[in-house]
């Protein structure tokens, strides 16, 4: 068995999850100009909702994934109403700080409900191995990739084809113009927060069986942030490609260099992109006229 294709394949599985979380960043940033510092907590909330649905209520896994994502989406819609909407007219600065406060508050709440200890998440899907040529993956990993690809594809399609998607793009491009042509901007803002966070939650649900759940697990979103920077921060395609790329590079670095370096790769990527090509792979240089 060759090791390189195997490393690439399992890197793609992690990468697919990073892509989902990064899509969350991109959707919110494009729509509202705010970097969501609670994105990690969106991941965490998704993971914990899935844990409750799966282990406490005992729902089957094909129901857990969509239900958890929808529930998380509604949770963030409600939170947007209380925490973010009142600041809609305030400077972006305030909103960014608000997301940071929301994120840490949610960690606190998670600690109060679930305790500070870790929770193990049982496998969502069968872990029986599947063979692809020289590469072995387990069924769960295949499902993770399929679900990620399907949901990212659906989102892209939705932005291109549907009325809601087009309206969201309009709001992203120019909020005032969108308002003038009759798009209820405030409602779409809420939708953008809900949608972006739901993608974080989906990442969390799929990530949950691979890692351990704890209130501070939102830290993983920093990798998604690196992905978003790599992809250009305004590009959904960039988020997908960047995520897969980071997943693979991380895995290779972990094997060929040192397993300690695995978690640092994301930072190195982030710093490198900032120094060499701040607009990322797919980003356009912002033209600032002086």
């Amino acid at each position, binding site marked *: 068995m060759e090791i390189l294709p195997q490393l690439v394949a399992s890197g793609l599985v992690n990468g697919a999850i990073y892509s989902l979380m990064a899509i969350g960043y991109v959707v919110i940033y494009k729509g509202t100009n705010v970097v969501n510092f609670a994105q990690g907590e969106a991941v965490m909330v998704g993971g914990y909702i899935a844990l409750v649905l799966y282990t406490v209520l005992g729902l089957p896994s094909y129901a857990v994934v969509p239900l958890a994502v929808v529930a998380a989406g509604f949770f963030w819609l409600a939170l947007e109403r209380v925490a973010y909407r009142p600041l809609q007219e305030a400077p972006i600065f305030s909103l*960014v*700080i*608000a997301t*940071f*406060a929301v994120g840490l508050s949610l960690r606190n*709440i998670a600690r109060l409900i679930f305790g500070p200890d870790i929770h193990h998440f049982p496998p969502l899907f069968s872990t029986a191995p599947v063979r692809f040529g020289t590469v072995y993956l387990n069924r769960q990993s295949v499902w993770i990739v399929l679900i990620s690809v399907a949901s990212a594809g659906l989102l892209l399609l939705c932005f291109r084809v549907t009325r809601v998607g087009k309206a969201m793009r309009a709001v992203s491009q120019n909020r005032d113009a969108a308002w003038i042509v009759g798009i209820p901007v405030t409602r779409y803002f809420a939708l953008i927060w809900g949608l972006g966070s739901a993608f974080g939650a989906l990442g969390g649900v799929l990530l949950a069986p691979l890692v351990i759940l704890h209130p501070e697990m939102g830290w993983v979103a920093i990798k998604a942030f690196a992905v978003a920077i790599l992809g250009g921060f305004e590009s959904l395609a960039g988020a997908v490609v960047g995520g897969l790329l980071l997943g693979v590079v991380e895995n290779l670095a972990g094997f060929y260099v040192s397993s300690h370096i695995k978690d640092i790769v994301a*930072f190195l990527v*982030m710093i490198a992109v900032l120094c060499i090509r701040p607009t990322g792979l797919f980003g356009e240089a912002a033209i600032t006229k002086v």
Partner: protein
Amino acid sequence: MRRRILAITFAALILPTIAPALNVYHLYVVNLCLIYLVANLGYGLVLGHAGQISLCQGAFVGLGAYLTALLSLRLGLPVAVALPLAAAVTAGVGFVLGLPALRLSGHYLALVTLGFNTIFEIVVRVWVSMTNGSYGLKVPKLVLGSVAVTRDLHFFYLSYGVALLALWVSWNLIRSRVGRALSAVRGSEIAAVSLGINVARAKTLAFSLSALFGALGGGLFAVTIGLISPDDFGLPKVLRFLTMLVVGGLGTLWGTVIGTTLLTVLPEALRFLKDFEELMYGVLLLVSLNLMPRGVAGLVRDLYHRLLAPERAFVGSAEEGT
């Protein structure tokens, strides 16, 4: 102006006068206020005056504290030397950290600094052989001349001196070319550039100063408390500093003083709510952003103009941001 100077001098003399009469616990709280004030004055320069979101003041304070302790424990330097050295090193770290992120506008600084604070906490926790990990590090005694500083009152005089110094430096800085450049950057980066301001340099300076003040506060924290652990410098602490500044009023010195004092004294009184700490600060921050975006300082200023000096209202609004 003269009346103002007199008033400030008077205010500055109150605390040292009553300090000897305070009991040990009250003195501890006062010391904590002063230490946090030093750290927050630095943080306020970046956040309030330059309008840049930095989220690693906890790490700067922690770096100051740990470097002070480690330089004297591992290298045998006297604490009196280690403390300023630690502050200088941290300022250097801040400078280097800010270089890539401050070149770019937007939210890069926020994320780089968020990452830095988290990494700092992890490193301190994991590198047990150096930092003693989560058990915390005992800080050697501060010796000035031939006298070991052990009494809380002495620490008070020390912190008070540093806090006044930090206030004085900030006060002058804000009224200098650099301070005005920072306000311009906060208002509009593009406008600032077109006025010939070197935006990157102004931001880097503010950020380095925030590291310097943070580390000074951290060094004082280390010697005053005597035991430091990674918990003292994590993200919850950053949230706490942030809330202090926002509640007090961003971009005003006395807002920083008010916010720091309020949110140091209040949690001491509400100790039983320890498990809800982040939630409490988070909610307070959100409420404050909504109801009083200019903080207590802004609120007091508005009230003052409305009730006492309506005819000066215009002058007041023009002075905003001082």
